[in-house]
């Protein structure tokens, strides 16, 4: 009974974050900022939903498989984000708030 409530709370929070991520996708000013909004759905939202689902499954093989999904997401989602951002940068998409064109932009180098 109490486990149902805990898993329900996790699932509801995850669904809420997913909606927030969708709103952010529309509200953000440019491509790179939208990447950050998607980051919310990629990380905490999916973690919470998987956590809620594994509470439903209990200690079983299903939980182990959910954990594998978590691991795959943990390693693949930054790769896809990097691929998107890197290609946009390579093809000269200028981030808002930075004056010059992307590949020749003067950037602050921290030593």
């Amino acid at each position, binding site marked *: 009974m109490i486990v149902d409530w805990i898993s329900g709370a996790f699932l509801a929070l995850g669904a809420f974050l997913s909606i927030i991520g969708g709103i952010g996708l529309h509200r953000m000013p440019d491509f790179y900022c939208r990447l950050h909004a998607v980051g919310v759905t990629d990380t905490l939202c999916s973690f919470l939903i998987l956590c809620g689902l594994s509470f439903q499954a209990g200690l079983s093989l299903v939980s182990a498989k959910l954990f*594998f999904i978590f691991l795959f997401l943990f390693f693949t989602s930054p790769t896809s*984000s*990097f691929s998107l951002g890197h290609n946009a*940068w390579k093809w000269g998409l200028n981030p808002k708030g*930075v004056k010059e064109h992307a590949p020749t932009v003067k950037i602050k180098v*921290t030593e």
Partner: protein
Amino acid sequence: MMHYFSLASLLMILWLLLSGHYNPLMIGFGVVSVLITLLLSHRMRVIDEESHPVHLTGDLFKYWAVLVYKIFQANIDVVLRIIGVRPIEPQLIRIPFPQQDDLSKVIYANSITLTPGSASIEIYPDSVLVHTISKEGAQALIEGELADIFPIQQDEHNGKQS
């Protein structure tokens, strides 16, 4: 040898968890599959400390635990910026890598991308170009938010790869 053992045990655990049948026949199939996979990986020469960083397993798990906490914090920050409580101020900064070998670079750039609010968009030989959503996030990264907790590699591995 250590790497072969690590790969074999990982594959066997994976087989046992995914199959769910524990009779001798199925486990025998598992052992055969693991041996074939080991043979193929050996012939492809993909088993080394880069694909199986056994020397930093403990440190890596500690690092991931801290990283999950950082991801949690960053998520709250980005959610607040999405719904308009905090302002959106995109920044572009360049951060040096804490360590110079390929594995550390991958882990570092991936961690930056995994944290919402900052994404690595270009890799240079000695540094990474990062797009952050806020001034505070950029400042925290410059001051070494992730670099401070980064697992330190042993000298022998640094020397071998650089």
